[in-house]
């Protein structure tokens, strides 16, 4: 009787309801009603909106999401629910009311109960209205194993849950898939790549009972496993190679991506995997790897748009972290509680901001860096770079030791040299390395670095009175020297300026490469209210850097000035030395985002929008590098060498001694010293060069003082209300849980065995990898609006197992693929298609279209194009020309060679213009966290597979592969081609379609050699010239067909 009702309900549901499984699997028409299964969904959908957790929205002071609220006496004196007494319950009266003004839900609310739902509610109340906490918040317990009538079928203990369910539905599991299908399925699932023919051969000939397990163990141990599993984690972590938002400049997070691959391959336990990614930086003695791991929560987008209000986005970043973390680990849609108490789940707005507080303690800025990583970031050398660095350091130490050993000889030689100086009184010394502009200003305006350059003064009345060394140039606020197109710097270029100044007025531009116009860009060194100021400006106010000395310079007094900039784009990279000593600085603007390089010429006495300079300048030098503190000190010393040399050593100032020693080593050192010194300098250059290639990666860090967090009214950044401290939602908490003050506490809390959600959510997400959907279909929502698990006991069993086996990820994967449930044939029958089209009951194996990454990787693998290398910076494979350009100014530079054939998870991911074929095959957009898989079936997929160069080239290489085999019939070649892709032999029908197609292509290309060559010219991999063009083209066309088969892009 029940069965027939259920069936007709199913049929009805098929016609009308996309959520039919919810009604089928949720509300069954059985006598024993369960609150979580049968009642809560009705209340949640229809009542919680006005009578739920959201206090602000709550009507009539009635709360139906808690037992206390639902059973309480109302203001009217009635009770919504009187257990055991349906007719005495106000709820029943209102849902049955014929009066529109009384009916619940209100007729204008777009919510309506069905007759069945009304009946179910009444029966439940009549039956005692037994209440349960929401199922996912009740900690899982190891369920008893159900009895099954076919105890032979289960292979994993938990298969019994699946079987029991099938048996209760009067269904049987499907037979085990054949070996080739099984091998293809498990290899794709565990590595994202197809099996090779050798692997097929070895599996098919292995008759032992462990044959399959051996395959599984081999796959789990393959480094391809980490790559395959990382792909889904990257979707969840919204990993990308650009910052997102409109400028969408590059960022560098691939070190984090490689950390994930490595952690998965090493089978890092999931609790550790969690802790290191959420709070690795806070672990005692955090290693470089543990810091890199925290990039998880820096993968969110960053807004670098000019003119944004940084506080607004600083809030968005934290919200993203909370949302993502809650979705990935807790399966909760916490984002809803940002603006108001959650409408359906027991999470208040206040609790949202308590979680917010945990992630709100990062020393970061609301405005992201436009091109590159935003702080906090760390240098993250690869293992190879770390080894190289160590090697250079060792050599450097050896050189230094050698110099120390030579110290007595050096001192002796210097003393001898010093005596000769007295005969050459005009000599002086300053750092020479990296010198770009050298203007002594001794009566002329010649740049000694560019003696043939055309330096011109626009006013002839420039005078050259006595200066610090020789003469100096004196400006009256009118003159301007045009030095020319030299000292051209951009925002990533380190540089230094060294000069003597004696100002006469408090405002004036000393030098710069900037037009004398209000909105000019470039750089200037100037006096502003007497303070010495460096400006690096792209656009004034929102793309600029301005730093000045805290104290004004005294007028009419000579000071030596060295300004250095390290190319870091940040004000912290600027130093100003006065008379060789670092001066305290004020940062006025620190928003440099793009290059300030201009075509304006270098000018002295002017060179920017301010007034021209009045005063003297002397010994002006500009370097294309950052001078060191010691060099600044030496540069500030104007005592000529011979004068220093004439002083007794004890009477020389430190700067004087350093200057003398530096000059000696630089120019007059004995041969053996010079050799070591040049080696040392060379090593230092090498180190600097290596240092520049070391990738940075964004990480989480904690501010020393907890940043105050407030509830934000309506979620708006500028509407702070009450202050909150870090914490977690009470509804997910348990008695005796440790208090949570920071991210590390929180991460540990997430993976505490008592946490009711983390293990369930995780095993469910992993289940989805194999079956295309979770046991809880809404993998992103374990709240009351999410779906109930199709197999609740199985979910709990797996969760408990996962925890008790030490969060062993590979063991979980293995358990799933070893199960009888997984190994079933995926063949459908009309009855099953009708009864359970989505395979929620698991009466067959999964048959699913491959993911975007697998579709491409498989084509590269079967054609032998795939590059095996793991990790490294992202690559730029084929992409239609101009895709980026038509949206913005970014230019896509396609890679060549091996980089074209890397696995898809290494493809450069630009968020605002993602790789189109990946998107066509439903890859996540990576703008925000995605854990729920979707699969569509569209004509764009067909167009890409038929016509995109990647797949046409793969077809050619696949054809070459089978044509290179000697002494084969065309039939045998076709069969090999087919088997390489589909891991099975073609049926006679299939073989005949393929052969007649091949014959047709042969005929076609024989008549059209040019068409054949055109087809074969596609793709950058060289064509095998030993093969006949006609034949190769015909096989290529056939391979193109095979790569387009539905079966090819489907897991069998």
């Amino acid at each position, binding site marked *: 009787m029940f069965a027939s009702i259920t069936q007709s309900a199913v049929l009805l549901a098929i016609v009308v309801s*996309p959520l039919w499984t919810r009604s089928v699997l949720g509300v069954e028409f059985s006598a024993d009603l369960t609150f979580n299964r049968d009642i809560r969904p009705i209340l949640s959908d229809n009542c919680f909106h006005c009578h739920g957790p959201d206090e602000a929205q709550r009507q009539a002071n009635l709360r139906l999401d808690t037992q206390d609220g639902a059973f309480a006496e109302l203001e009217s004196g009635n009770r919504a629910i009187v257990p055991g007494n349906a007719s005495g319950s106000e709820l029943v009266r209102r849902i049955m009311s014929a009066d529109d003004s009384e009916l619940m839900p209100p007729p204008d609310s777009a919510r309506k109960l069905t007759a069945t739902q009304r009946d179910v509610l009444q029966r439940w109340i009549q039956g005692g209205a037994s209440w349960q906490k929401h199922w996912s918040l009740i900690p899982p317990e190891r369920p008893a194993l159900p009895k099954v009538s076919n105890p032979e079928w289960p292979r994993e203990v938990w298969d019994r849950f699946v079987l029991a369910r099938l048996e209760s539905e009067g269904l049987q599991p499907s037979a085990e898939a054949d070996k080739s299908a099984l091998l293809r399925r498990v290899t794709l699932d565990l590595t994202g790549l197809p099996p090779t023919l050798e692997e097929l051969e070895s599996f098919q000939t292995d008759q032992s009972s462990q044959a399959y397990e051996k395959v599984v163990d081999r796959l789990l141990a393959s480094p391809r496993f980490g790559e395959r599993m990382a792909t889904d984690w990257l979707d969840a972590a919204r990993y990308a190679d650009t910052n997102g938002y409109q400028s969408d400049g590059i960022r560098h997070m691939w070190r984090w991506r490689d950390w994930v691959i490595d952690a998965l391959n090493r089978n890092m336990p999931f609790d550790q995997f969690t802790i290191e990614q959420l709070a690795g930086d806070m672990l005692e003695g955090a290693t470089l790897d543990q810091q890199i791991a925290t990039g998880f929560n820096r993968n969110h987008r960053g807004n670098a748009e000019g003119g944004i209000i940084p506080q607004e986005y600083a809030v968005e970043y934290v919200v993203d972290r909370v949302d993502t973390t809650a979705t990935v680990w807790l399966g909760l849609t916490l984002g809803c509680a940002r603006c108001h108490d959650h409408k359906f789940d027991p999470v208040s707005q206040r609790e949202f901001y308590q979680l917010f507080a945990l992630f709100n303690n990062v020393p970061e800025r609301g405005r992201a860096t436009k091109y590159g990583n935003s702080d906090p970031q760390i240098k993250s050398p690869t293992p190879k770079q770390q080894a190289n660095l160590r090697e250079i350091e060792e050599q450097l130490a050896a050189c230094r030791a050698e110099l120390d050993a030579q110290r007595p000889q050096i001192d002796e030689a210097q003393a001898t040299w010093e005596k000769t100086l007295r005969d050459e009184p005009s000599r002086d010394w300053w750092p020479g390395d990296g010198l770009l502009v050298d203007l002594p200003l001794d009566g002329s305006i010649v740049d000694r670095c560019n003696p043939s350059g055309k330096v011109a003064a626009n006013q002839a009345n420039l005078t050259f009175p006595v200066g610090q060394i020789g003469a100096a140039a004196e400006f009256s606020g009118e003159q301007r020297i045009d030095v020319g197109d030299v000292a051209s710097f951009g925002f990533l270029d380190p540089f230094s300026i060294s000069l003597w100044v004696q100002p006469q007025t408090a405002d004036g531009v000393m030098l710069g490469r900037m037009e004398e116009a209000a909105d000019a860009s470039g750089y200037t060194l100037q006096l502003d209210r007497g303070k010495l100021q460096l400006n690096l400006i792209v656009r004034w106010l929102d793309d600029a850097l301005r730093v000045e000395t805290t104290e004004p310079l005294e007028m009419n007094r000579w000071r030596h000035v060295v300004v250095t900039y390290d190319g870091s784009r940040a004000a912290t990279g600027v130093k100003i030395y006065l008379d060789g000593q670092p001066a305290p600085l004020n940062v006025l603007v620190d928003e440099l985002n793009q290059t300030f390089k201009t075509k304006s010429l270098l000018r002295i006495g002017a060179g920017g929008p301010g007034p021209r300079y009045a005063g003297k300048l002397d010994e002006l030098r500009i370097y294309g590098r950052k001078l060191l503190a010691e060099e600044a000190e030496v540069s500030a010393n104007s005592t000529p060498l011979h004068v220093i040399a004439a002083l007794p050593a004890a009477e020389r100032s430190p700067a004087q001694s350093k200057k003398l020693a530096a000059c000696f080593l630089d120019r007059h050192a004995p041969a053996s010293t010079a050799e070591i010194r040049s080696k040392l300098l060379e090593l230092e250059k090498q180190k600097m060069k290596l240092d520049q290639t070391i990738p940075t990666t964004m990480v989480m860090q904690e501010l020393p003082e907890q940043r105050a967090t407030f509830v934000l009214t309506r979620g708006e950044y500028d509407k702070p209300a009450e202050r909150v401290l870090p914490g977690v939602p009470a509804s997910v908490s348990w008695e005796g849980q440790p208090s949570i003050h920071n991210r590390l506490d929180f991460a540990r809390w997430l993976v505490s065995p008592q946490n009711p959600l983390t293990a369930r959510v995780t095993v469910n997400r992993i289940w989805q990898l194999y079956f295309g959907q979770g046991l809880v279909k809404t993998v992103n929502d374990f709240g009351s609006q999410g779906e109930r698990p199709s197999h609740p006991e199985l979910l709990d069993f797996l969760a408990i197992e996962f925890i008790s086996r030490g969060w062993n990820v590979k063991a979980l994967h293995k358990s799933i693929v070893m199960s009888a449930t997984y190994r079933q044939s995926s063949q459908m029958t*009309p009855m099953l*298609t009708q009864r359970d089209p989505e395979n929620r009951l698991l009466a067959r194996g999964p048959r699913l279209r491959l993911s975007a990454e697998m579709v491409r990787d498989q084509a590269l693998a079967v054609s032998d194009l795939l590059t095996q290398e793991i990790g490294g910076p992202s690559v730029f494979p084929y992409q239609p020309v101009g895709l980026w350009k038509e949206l913005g100014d970014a230019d896509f530079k396609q890679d060549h060679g091996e980089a074209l054939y890397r696995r898809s998870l290494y493809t450069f991911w630009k968020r605002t213009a993602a790789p189109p074929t990946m998107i066509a095959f439903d890859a996540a957009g990576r703008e*925000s966290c995605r854990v729920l898989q979707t699969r569509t079936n569209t*004509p764009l*997929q067909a167009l890409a597979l038929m016509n995109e160069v990647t797949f046409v080239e793969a077809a050619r290489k696949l054809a070459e592969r089978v044509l290179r085999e000697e002494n084969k019939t065309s039939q045998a070649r076709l069969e090999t081609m087919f088997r390489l892709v589909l891991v099975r032999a073609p049926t006679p029908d299939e073989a005949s379609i393929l052969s007649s197609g091949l014959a047709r292509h042969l005929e076609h290309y024989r008549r059209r050699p040019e068409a054949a060559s055109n087809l074969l010219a596609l793709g950058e991999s060289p064509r095998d010239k030993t093969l006949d063009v006609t034949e190769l083209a015909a096989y290529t066309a056939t391979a193109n067909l095979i790569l387009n*088969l539905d079966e090819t892009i489907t897991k069998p």
Partner: protein
Amino acid sequence: MSQQLLHTLPTSRRHFFSAAGLGIGAAALSSLLDQPSARAAKSSDAAPGLTHFAPKAKRVIYLFQSGGPSQIDLFDYKPRLREWGGGELPGSVRRGQRLTGMTSGQASFPIAASKYKFAQHGQSGAWVSELLPHTSRIADRLCFVKSMFTEAINHDPAITFFQTGTQLAGRPSIGAWLSYGLGTQNLDLPAFVALVSQGTGNPNDQPLYDRLWGSGFLPTKYQGIKFRGSGEPVLHLSNPPGIDDSTRRRMLDDLSRLNQLQLDKYADPEIATRIAQYELAYRMQMSVPDLTNLADESASAIDMYGPEARKPGTFAANCLLARRLSERGVRFVELFHRGWDQHTKLPEQLPGQCRDTDQPAAALVTDLAQRGLLDETLVIWGGEFGRTVYCQGQLTPETYGRDHHPRCFTVWIAGGGIKPGLSFGQTDEHSYNVIENPVHVHDLHATLLHCLGIDHTQLTYFYQGRHHRLTDVHGKVVQEIVA
């Protein structure tokens, strides 16, 4: 879609609706039917697809002007600004409202009057600037909404808000909603097409992003397909060199037979869908080149769109293409024209932007009207926000610029169910705040959907625990502008 194909398709809901074309609005319809609510009743008399009442418009052409065109220099005539020009913007006007980081640090906020002449046009007497002579001529066909306002003050969030109803990424765009709700009228073409062009006024202006025509949390099949100005109009549309049409056709026949063998074996309805999708792909291969081939257009029909109409990828060429797409039943065509971000040197840049768009946009409206299509096509022209009355940069008649301004701007709408010859809403004398009939972005969306026969509160998609709408939980139809 032939009956034949219908029969080969499976009956399961999921698979049934995943067949593109077949699901003419069917996806949203099913979402509706799922709800045991008033919605189902409403939809029962609406066919095909999801319409809640008789639609006025069947299609939309949205001429999106990316960057934020200056309402003060184009539509919102404020004569007193001339006398106030150069003076400080009174604090009583600004009321401490937030400014972008580009000008919030400015020491002063001098008023920049428009240097352009305004005149009234047509019977309706609409004010339009001299920069838009062609638009002026069709003023009586247009409804100028002068009281638009938005919440965001920077490009990315503001455009994302305009196109998806939310400032943050992740929600479906307007066209994706319509494609989900109404499906396509032409089985050989996508329901939603996006076209982009580069402004000549400001060639290095703000970029665009795929999410503006993306499907957000809706399945990707609802995303807009970007037709490209150069190369293939649709990515991977053409067969590779060396594969001609007949080879492809026969290959597809073989493919279909091989897939059918699998279908026989596995009985997986996805295979039937796959077969249908390859056929659709083939039909696109056949029909799209025809669409972009202008050989069937008379010279005068092309010329009316202006001198650039024959240059693929320009706004003019895109307007013509939009008409051809719309004629063929494409539900939502959206043009994105870049270059409207005049922070400085507005007088240098704005004329170029207007030259790009004025004649083609006016021609499109006229062309649709002449073909009798304007009544059923909604045409919208506008950007993501307006621009400030105060000057950014140096205030001279040749160099003045304007920052982003979310508090008021102008959008014009024509055709499909909108009152022509109307100027709606008013701003204050500084064109700073709306003083009458404010129209929020959500209201514009609600009105757009209304013209297509959709109640904006009823077009929903269940995701992450709740029913989402284009208008979130806001929006009201601007009844005063609906005909």
